[in-house]
């Protein structure tokens, strides 16, 4: 190593590494060597490739081109990854992104401990130790979602450290965390490193002021490395005083040219009218106090800063000022008028820019501006000029027809500001407008703000994480846990606390505020307290083809999460019952109470006898006689009559004379299957009537016919729809919902990001899949029991066969169904696609090709082939066989085999298609 600052062997070495997402390059030809046993910082704004680089090093993302060597092996080699992943810990970007929000602190760490094969006693000891040293011990049962940003990051660290890694990869661990928690976090890392000197730490950060702590820095921009050096070395090389200016100095010439230092003229003296005033503003969500009696007043033209961690109440306060949220208590005034959500006039005087980019990404830059101009009611005559002025002022003229998603973050922020300014508001409320924006663009943004404030007299209320931005404000308010700790000009704040920097002053205030409640920062050692640490690392390094404990760990976690998600749980437990009730009552092929009426031209006793023979049946209900053809037409058109009978004139006389007569019958053909049934009934009754007439006339032989067909309706003698439907519906429901939930369980992790834990832990594909599947198989069996209960009780469908046979078949079947869901999940990216995709892919073959409505034997072509392969077909056969046909194992074994064979095929395919790395 040329510099001499690093260890002998680099912990990671990248050569010629390139990476692109859909042709958009993220990393370009990176050559980099990271020294071991050091704390290495990757610095640079968002979107320059820091995260991509870290995910490659951690093995979470597949190498596209070039070579990545970590811990002495090639990360493109799956065996090396499997061997070394117990030595690497990875904490991805985003607060708590690899945590499970509904699981408690203990459950989260415990899950990771199980994945690394630690036994119960060891896990308990380690968790107790880690939580004690990070100060989380008091919150051990709190769900991760309810932790503050700083606590989430500490929990993430605990999860990463549970297996004593040699390489710790942290991606922006302190973004969005308050300065005190940030400082505590770094102190924690320092202590851990003191305990385990052999551990290398690679950190990405967007806060340049943090970078001073690191041993070694890698500055990145636009997918390339700008420089690698020690912090002191970088400052020396650029001749700058602080790292932020040093970073700007390192940028290529054309980027740097756009940069000018921000100069803000002093606020003109003299008292300005008050633009924004808040008195005792309070917001409660349930028993949580988000904003606690906040008061301040801001003069016209002032730049007022709001500083504080994520979740301290800044955003909520701003929303109350704009009228988005009505305060629980207190009052706010804009220009002396109380804020009222319904007051349209106030809205026209305020411009608001929310935290996340929140413009229409489907509209172009111009369309966004024009839409907002229209909504603010800017007259058509002025509109074009106003839009042009905004494009010019915010330097957006070149990208006017681009979609926002195609623009760099800095441009998007300028567009947001342009939209917020389109109606020339007197007040701008900006919620963290510069988060994630690079330093050059950030300074450009601030120059615009300075201009607006000083030249146009716009009052600016802005929140930020960046201390150098806070220093540019005329006054700032420090906010913490819903309260404003202090409000003063920045220099004044630092002076009051006798601190060198604003950050130190802020930390001073935070410590004072937290003092009564704080459990002093623990001084305990963080690692190496558990004696078996080394041996654990040793055993975890051994490759196992299949480890039941890891499977059960996934299963356990899945079950816990499901238990805490009411909508999914409801669907899982009662979804199929609800659908069974709907289908059971809704799909009925019995045809009864059909309305019919007669157009009787004869009106003889014989014609009345014919009518009575139909009216007497339980299938038909007679309506008022039809008066003429117009009446017949009208009543059939509006659906009042399903059947109309026309008896011709001289009906009785003609029969008596042995002359052939025809009775006309019109059936409503709108619903063909019902019409078929009616046709059958009418023909039957007609024959019956003829036979009776013949018998009465003494022509018995002819009446009885020449052959006696004894029709035996087997298994379901009354041909009841329910008896036939229910055994077919149970297989349908046991396919649809378990498959959908299993598919969701994997796609959810993909969408929320916790799938990373599967990528970077020793879990194998099969362990992961079976762990995911197990809870849903259990749930599906509970559903099976519920559906069986419903079938025999409420629907009173007799069960005649072997209960053991159908239960075993159901078990194999739901394993198939969940495996099918997992298979579908491998090619679905979003949860909504997984829901609809699974519904379509499982319902169509289950309903149409599996013999539920039409027997498979009646199908042709592809439908028949699908039907013969699809597991639903075989389970329907078993279900009908046991329900209605009184069959058992011996009769049905032929239907078990195809299902049993499907299980390994489906799971094997899924394992093959499931990626163990992000691509």
């Amino acid at each position, binding site marked *: 190593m040329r510099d001499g600052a690093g260890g002998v062997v680099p912990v990671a070495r990248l050569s010629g590494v390139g990476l692109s997402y859909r042709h958009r390059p993220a990393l370009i030809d990176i050559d980099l060597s990271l020294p071991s046993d050091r704390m290495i910082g990757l610095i640079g704004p968002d979107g320059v490739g820091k995260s991509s680089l870290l995910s490659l090093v951690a093995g979470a993302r597949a190498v596209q081109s070039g070579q990545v060597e970590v811990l002495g092996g090639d990360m493109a080699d799956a065996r090396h990854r499997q061997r070394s992943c117990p030595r690497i810990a990875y904490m991805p970007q985003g607060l708590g992104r690899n945590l499970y929000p509904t699981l408690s602190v203990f459950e989260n760490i415990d899950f990771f401990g199980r994945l690394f094969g630690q036994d119960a006693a060891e896990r308990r000891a380690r968790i107790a130790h880690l939580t004690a040293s990070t100060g989380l011990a008091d919150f051990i049962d709190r769900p991760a979602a309810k932790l503050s940003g700083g606590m989430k990051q500490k929990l993430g660290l605990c999860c990463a450290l549970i297996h004593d890694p040699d390489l710790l990869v942290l991606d922006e661990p302190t973004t969005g965390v308050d300065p005190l928690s940030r400082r505590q976090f770094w102190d924690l890392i320092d202590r851990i490193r003191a305990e385990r000197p052999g551990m290398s730490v690679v950190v990405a950060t967007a806060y340049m002021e943090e970078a001073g702590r690191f041993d070694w820095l890698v500055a990145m921009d636009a997918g390339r490395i700008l420089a690698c050096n020690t912090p002191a070395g970088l400052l020396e090389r650029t001749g700058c005083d602080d790292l932020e200016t040093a970073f700007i100095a390192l940028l290529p010439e054309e980027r740097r040219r756009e940069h000018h230092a921000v100069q803000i003229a002093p606020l003109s003296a003299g008292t300005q009218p008050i633009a924004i005033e808040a008195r005792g503003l309070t917001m409660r969500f349930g028993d949580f106090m988000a904003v606690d009696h906040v008061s301040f007043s801001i003069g016209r033209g002032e730049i007022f800063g709001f500083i504080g961690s994520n979740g301290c109440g800044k955003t909520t306060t701003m929303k109350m000022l704009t009228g988005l949220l009505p305060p629980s208590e207190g009052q706010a005034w804009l220009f002396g008028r109380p804020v009222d959500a319904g007051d349209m006039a106030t809205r026209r005087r305020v411009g608001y820019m929310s935290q996340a980019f929140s413009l229409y990404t489907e509209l172009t830059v111009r369309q966004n501006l024009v839409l907002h101009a*229209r909504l603010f009611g800017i007259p058509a005559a002025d509109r074009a000029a106003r839009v042009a002025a905004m494009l010019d002022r915010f330097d957006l003229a070149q990208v006017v027809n681009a979609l926002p998603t195609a623009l760099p973050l800095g441009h998007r922020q300028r567009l947001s500001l342009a939209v917020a300014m389109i109606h020339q508001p007197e007040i701008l409320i900006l919620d963290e407008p510069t988060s994630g924006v690079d330093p050059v663009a950030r300074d450009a943004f601030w120059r615009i703000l300075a201009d607006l404030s000083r030249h146009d007299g716009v009052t600016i209320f802005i929140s930020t994480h960046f201390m150098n931005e806070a220093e540019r404000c005329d006054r700032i308010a420090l906010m913490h846990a819903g309260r404003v700790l202090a409000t003063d000009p920045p220099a004044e704040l630092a002076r009051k606390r006798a601190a060198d920097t604003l950050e130190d002053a802020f930390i001073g205030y935070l410590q004072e505020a937290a003092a009564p409640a704080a459990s002093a920062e623990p001084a305990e050692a963080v690692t190496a307290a558990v004696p078996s640490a080394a041996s654990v690392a040793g055993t975890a390094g051994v490759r196992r083809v299949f480890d039941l404990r890891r499977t059960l760990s996934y299963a356990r976690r899945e079950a816990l999460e499901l238990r805490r998600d009411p909508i999914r749980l409801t669907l899982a437990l009662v979804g199929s019952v609800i659908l069974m009730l709907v289908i059971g009552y809704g799909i009925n092929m019995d045809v009864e109470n059909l309305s019919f009426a007669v157009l009787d031209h004869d009106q003889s006793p014989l014609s009345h006898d014919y009518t009575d023979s139909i009216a007497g049946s339980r299938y038909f209900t007679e309506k008022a006689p039809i008066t003429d053809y117009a009446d017949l037409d009208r009543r059939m058109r509006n659906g009042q009559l399903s059947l109309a009978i026309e008896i011709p004139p001289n009906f009785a006389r003609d029969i008596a004379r042995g002359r052939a007569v025809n009775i006309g019958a019109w059936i*409503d053909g709108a619903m063909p299957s019902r019409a078929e049934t009616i046709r059958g009934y009418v023909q039957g009754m007609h024959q019956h009537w003829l036979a009776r007439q013949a018998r009465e006339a003494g022509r018995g032989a002819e009446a009885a016919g020449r052959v006696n067909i004894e029709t035996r309706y087997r298994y379901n003698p009354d041909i009841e729809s329910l008896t036939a439907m229910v055994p077919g519906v149970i297989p349908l429901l046991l396919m649809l919902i378990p498959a959908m939930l299993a598919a969701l369980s994997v796609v959810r992790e993909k969408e929320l990001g916790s799938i990373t834990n599967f990528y970077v832990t020793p879990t194998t594909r099969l362990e992961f899949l079976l762990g995911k599947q197990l809870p849903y198989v259990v749930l599906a069996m509970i559903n099976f029991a519920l559906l069986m209960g419903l079938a025999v009780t409420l629907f009173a469908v007799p069960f005649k066969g072997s209960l053991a046979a159908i239960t075993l078949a159901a078990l194999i079947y739901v394993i198939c169904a969940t495996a099918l869901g997992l298979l579908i999940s491998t090619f679905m990216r979003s949860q909504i696609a997984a829901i609809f995709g699974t519904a379509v892919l499982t319902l169509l073959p289950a309903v149409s090709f599996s013999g539920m409505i039409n027997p498979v034997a009646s199908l042709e072509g592809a439908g028949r082939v699908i039907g013969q392969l699809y597991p639903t077909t075989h389970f329907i056969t078993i279900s009908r066989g046991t329900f209605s046909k009184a069959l058992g194992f011996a009769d049905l074994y032929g239907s078990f085999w195809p299902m049993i064979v499907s299980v390994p095929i489906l799971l094997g395919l899924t394992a093959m298609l499931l990626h163990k790395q992000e691509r």
Partner: protein
Amino acid sequence: MRAANIWHLGIKELRSLVRDRGMLVLILYAFTFAIYSAATAMPETLHNAAIAIVDEDGSPLSQRIVDAFQPPYFRPPDLIAADRMDTRLDTGRDTFALDIPPDFQRDVMAGRVPAMQLNVDATQVRQAFTGAGYIQNIVNDEVTDFVRRRQNEPVLPVGLVLRARFNPQLSEKWFGAVMELINNITMLSIVLTGAALIREREHGTVEHLLVMPVTPLEIMLSKVWSMALVVLAATAVSLFVVIRGLLAVPVHGSTLLFLSAVALHLFATTSMGIFLGTVARSMPQFGLLLILLLLPLDILSGGMTPRESMPTAVADIMLAAPTTHFVALAQAVLYRGAGLATVWPQLAAILAIGSVLFAASLLRFRRTIATMA
């Protein structure tokens, strides 16, 4: 309320939809391919039914009976031995098994009325009853014809002339296409409006709208009109191009009346979509709720099973759903050619239900909109 805002926000919705490729594919699929396949894939009630015959007679008459079973109603019969009959019925290989006894022809000719056994797998409820009727008719016709030719018997004096109105061939294709169209109108209008609302919420743009001089009523109306327009246009195209053109289904009634009714129905269903969008907190939740809502609407509205065949309580509850009235109306207009004079009660019911749904959604939208941001 400003009409201009409603108009511009609606245009914005349409622009967003144009860029949402997934939704466009779904619309295209639902109104073309899905309808075509629903129409053509739905087999006739009795189609290729599996029948086995045990011929213990082996006479010319029994041979005639065997030959009488022909596609498309029946598969060519399998001739089997008597002891295989039960197993084949048990495993679902056959739906019907006909046993022709020994000396059958001789007994028929001698007027001894021999008994013939027909076994029906009644778990196949869709085919069982109709199929048994067909088989009885076929056997009777063959026997009568056979006897008549040999003995010159007179015909029965009273005939029954059966005609199916509105769909003389009882083609399932007509029925399947129109029912699929009706179901997809309901499904898409709910999905489009609900998704439009949730998308705004997930992208944080609702918050953006709320700080502008725009009222919740304007936001909601803009989504209702724009998404309803999309579905209405797709319906018209589907009706003219796919159903009338490609599938050659004759549409009896006034298409103008039908499309007006669709517009009214969309007012109700898009309101439902908004309501669902306020209940669900994310797209996945919306998807799950949708399944629990759409299946009952599709199944219980009278399209799949006639309302008179449902338990009274279920039928009564379903009167509150707009789809029930819409299905009745659509069947009357499209199948039976009914006019306004016949279907006005349904139109009135849809309007009333739509108004209630709209009011409820607006109320809920206003109440929850603050927490959405």
